[in-house]
């Protein structure tokens, strides 16, 4: 494996583990799912829309406070951004961090291609 690519991409993937951690929760995934389908939504909208989404929250409705907490985690990973709209905050999905993960996987994948082709020459010669 060539460490070069691994290190080049490393510079741009600072919050990667945070992104993965932020996505490793059912409620937050449900929030991301809701937000990535379009327009920014307020905390009230996200709290109220749980009714249509009950299996994602295991039937128990989360409080506004709990939703806010999850949104903050997503925000700190850069997956959503808060935008002021009048008196309330709305949250907007940002595809960039997830695109970053994809890019990292692509690089690791390319390095395996190189390493395996060296293995191939090694055992076939």
């Amino acid at each position, binding site marked *: 494996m060539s460490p070069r690519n691994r290190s080049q991409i490393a510079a741009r993937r600072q919050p990667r583990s945070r992104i*993965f951690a932020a996505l490793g929760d059912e409620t937050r995934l*449900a929030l991301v799912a809701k937000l990535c389908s*379009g327009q920014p939504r307020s905390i009230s909208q996200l709290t109220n829309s749980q009714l249509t989404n009950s299996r994602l929250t295991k039937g128990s409705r989360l409080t506004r406070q709990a939703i806010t907490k999850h949104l903050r985690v997503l925000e700190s990973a850069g997956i959503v951004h808060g935008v002021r709209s009048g008196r309330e905050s709305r949250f907007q999905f940002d*595809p960039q961090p*997830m695109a970053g993960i994809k890019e990292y996987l692509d690089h690791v994948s390319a390095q*395996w291609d190189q*390493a395996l082709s*060296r293995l191939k*020459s090694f055992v*076939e010669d």
Partner: protein
Amino acid sequence: MDNRIEKRIELKAPVSRVWRALTDHREFGEWFRVRLDGPFVPGQISRGQMTYPGYEHVKWEAVVQKMEPERLFSFTWPHPKSFEKGEALQDYSKEPTTLVEFRLEKTASGTLLVLTESGFDNIPSDRRLEAFRRNEGGWTEQMKNIEKHVSQKP
């Protein structure tokens, strides 16, 4: 989300030959470009130094998981933030790790090697994600794009 890499490669060499290239630490070091301190032993840490030109300062460290002769060789290894000189870590113990598995199968012309690297995220279950795929159009779309991209570059 697709959190694993899978590679399949046909090798025109007997399974026993490929097994040796993978698990003999000197042979592994030759094609992988690392100088390992000692043999691979399941449950033990394998240490060494990269020999890849320009990256000789990078430490190799992995924990050998399974060695099932001529079938499966696996280890976990860290994905530290950086390998650049001055930024490369000496201590990997707190870095996130992934699982690397090499599986071998005998074929008519030699050996099929299946490599997987998994655990890039800590989402506990793929099945959980299935639920979201069914429920949410937007999420499905996003995940599809990512998966497509990853799988188009095998």
